[in-house]
């Protein structure tokens, strides 16, 4: 009896001992770093926290993991220094294992560096820059939902194929806008289209009427908006005022989120063409999940960034559970091992360079007559298969690719 008890005690001690060595504190801590209060708050923000918590709940229900899971969140205010500070504190003092979301490419690049240094995991659903899987790639980072190359290539190529072979750009005059314009120009030319002209507009411009007139005069079939946020919203609103779409030209938003369309309203956004990897109304799974999400987030339907937060957390937890470890590099390696069925994005796989690859879609914004109600905004024009949606592995210049 005594021996049996001792053996049992030893076994328990051993078991917990190894568990502690594998998953620190027997707790997996997820940090949602996002813009909680300013221009990207509707794209990621508090909705991303909701998505992360849903993933935790679903994972616990399905797998009954032996470790505890916690979610914390932080507001990076779109400043790389603020974001870095939060993440360092999370990693050093609070035992956070993985940082998710993080819209704003500048902050994301900083977080990716720190994550590599501390051997944790960064799952970027929010940022756009394709440098995260190119020159600045890291064995601890997975770029989850979309990137600038995919946006430019998707919208550019698909539109030319659908007859939109002449382009005029309205570009935000700074690094992001210029890169987007350059990438899209390449895609358009490769597909056999022509760029008739463009105009570089100072960032955060109120009035686009002058530039829209120039675009109108160019007679280009497609007016590409290489800008974001408020600039995109204002250019689309004013384009409708000047009868651009009614006059036979189409707008192509190169980075547009569902929340932007909700802010502009269909009356003014109708006809807009855009690329995204997720829309709530695609199949039964996306509809069911999105309705659950909306019920938890003030009846707002999820953006692709928020959907990406959900599935990236889910996949991460599955990998941690499979290898019973929260070692950053090992978990990411595990996630890269085999393709998986993403409940919201469909068939996916994570490449060597950290790019999560899945299909993308070309959408067009519905007319008010076609829409059945709030958030019934997109119709699908084309599906871009996963293999064509993202930059070819060899073109990125990532040092992890041999």
């Amino acid at each position, binding site marked *: 009896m005594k021996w049996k008890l001792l053996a049992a005690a030893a076994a328990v001690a051993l078991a917990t001992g190894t568990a502690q060595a594998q998953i620190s504190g027997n707790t997996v801590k997820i940090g949602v770093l996002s813009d909680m209060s300013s221009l990207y708050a509707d794209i990621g923000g508090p909705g991303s926290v909701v998505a992360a918590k849903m993933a935790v709940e679903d994972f616990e229900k399905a797998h009954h993991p032996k470790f505890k899971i916690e979610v914390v969140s932080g507001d990076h205010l779109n400043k790389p220094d603020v974001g870095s500070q939060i993440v360092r504190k999370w990693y050093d003092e609070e035992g956070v294992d993985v940082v998710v979301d993080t819209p704003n490419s500048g902050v994301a690049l900083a977080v990716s560096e720190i994550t590599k240094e501390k051997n944790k995991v960064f799952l970027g659903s929010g940022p756009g820059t394709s440098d995260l899987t190119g020159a600045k790639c890291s064995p601890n980072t997975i770029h989850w939902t979309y990137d600038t190359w995919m946006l430019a290539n998707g919208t550019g190529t698909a539109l030319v194929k659908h007859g939109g072979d002449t382009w005029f750009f309205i570009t935000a005059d700074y690094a992001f806008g210029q890169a987007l314009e350059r990438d899209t120009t390449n895609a358009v030319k490769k597909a056999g289209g022509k760029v008739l002209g463009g105009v570089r*507009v*100072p960032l955060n411009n*109120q009035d686009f009427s002058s530039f829209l007139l120039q675009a109108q*005069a160019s007679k280009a079939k497609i007016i590409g908006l290489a800008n974001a*946020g408020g600039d995109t919203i204002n250019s689309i609103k004013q384009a409708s005022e000047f009868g651009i779409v009614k006059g036979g030209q189409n707008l192509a938003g190169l980075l547009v989120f569902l929340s932007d369309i909700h*802010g502009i309203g269909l009356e003014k956004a109708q006809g807009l063409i855009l690329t995204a990897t997720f829309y709530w109304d695609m199949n039964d799974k996306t509809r069911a999940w999105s309705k659950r999400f909306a019920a938890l987030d003030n009846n707002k339907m999820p953006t692709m960034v928020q959907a990406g937060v959900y599935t990236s957390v889910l996949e991460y937890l599955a990998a941690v559970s499979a290898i019973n470890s929260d070692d950053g590099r090992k978990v990411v390696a595990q996630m890269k091992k085999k393709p998986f069925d993403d409940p919201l994005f469909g068939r996916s796989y994570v490449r060597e360079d950290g790019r999560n690859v899945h299909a993308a879609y070309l959408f067009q914004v519905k007319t008010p007559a076609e829409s059945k109600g709030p958030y019934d905004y997109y119709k699908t024009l084309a599906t871009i298969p996963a293999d064509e949606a993202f930059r070819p592995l060899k073109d990125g210049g990532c040092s992890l690719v041999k």
Partner: protein
Amino acid sequence: MSISVPALMGQLLIGLINGSFYALLSLGLAVIFGLLNIINFAHGAQYMLGAFVAWFLLDKAGLDYWWALLIVPVVLAAFGAVIERLMLKHLYKLDHLYGLLLTFGLALILEGVFTNQFGSAGLPYSMPDKLTGGYNLGFMFLPTYRAWVIVASLVICVATWFVIERTKLGSYLRAATENPSLVQAFGVNVPRMITLTYGFGAGLAGLAGVFAAPIYQVSPQMGSSLIIVVFAVVVIGGMGSIMGSILTGFGLGIIEGLTKYFYPEASSTVIFVIMAIVLVVRPQGLFGQR
């Protein structure tokens, strides 16, 4: 670049439209500075509030654009009067800097509260049915709404100038700024007049906000992006000069429009370049006397 006359005409007209916003806002600033000696940095926030009140009226009370044109200036004027009574009143004897700091702080608080409440993407405000559509002028498509904004702001600007420069009430106002105690001795209630003046300036900003709501997104930051340009307009026109601020507003709108055509990269800086030149050559501004 080859210059096409029709395109140029289009840009000139658009410049005029933007100019009418500059004129309307700088007019309010000029009136407030001229009569109160306050550099009203809260002007942009009051313009933003005007747009938001219009949105509230439509969304919560079902009152349309035309009602907003009437109600918003009154609401903003009352808001302005309260601020003047409670805060600004205590600063008249101090340096300009204190009024500037107070109103700047107010602007930051208002913007912060609204950003927190409504997010940054902004809210849509639909255009009144009667003013949708537009005219094909041959060289450009002129939306009806923009034409309306030009006409309406011209009328308001001229009326304001007339009241201040050509009527008895206006002469009291001007006299009160020159020598308040003397005017008070003649039995005119100077403090009340000053309160009403600030309220009037705030009301003008609110009205500009209503004009802007259907064109721009109703967003917390809409004022701060405009206010700096409008200040430059006032400086170029001459601080406190009513006619100067109107003419400069329209004129700079046109210059900016031309820049957008010939060299768009500079369109956000051209006004400040002009401001710098004017300050060097004629520090009191184009129309300023002081």
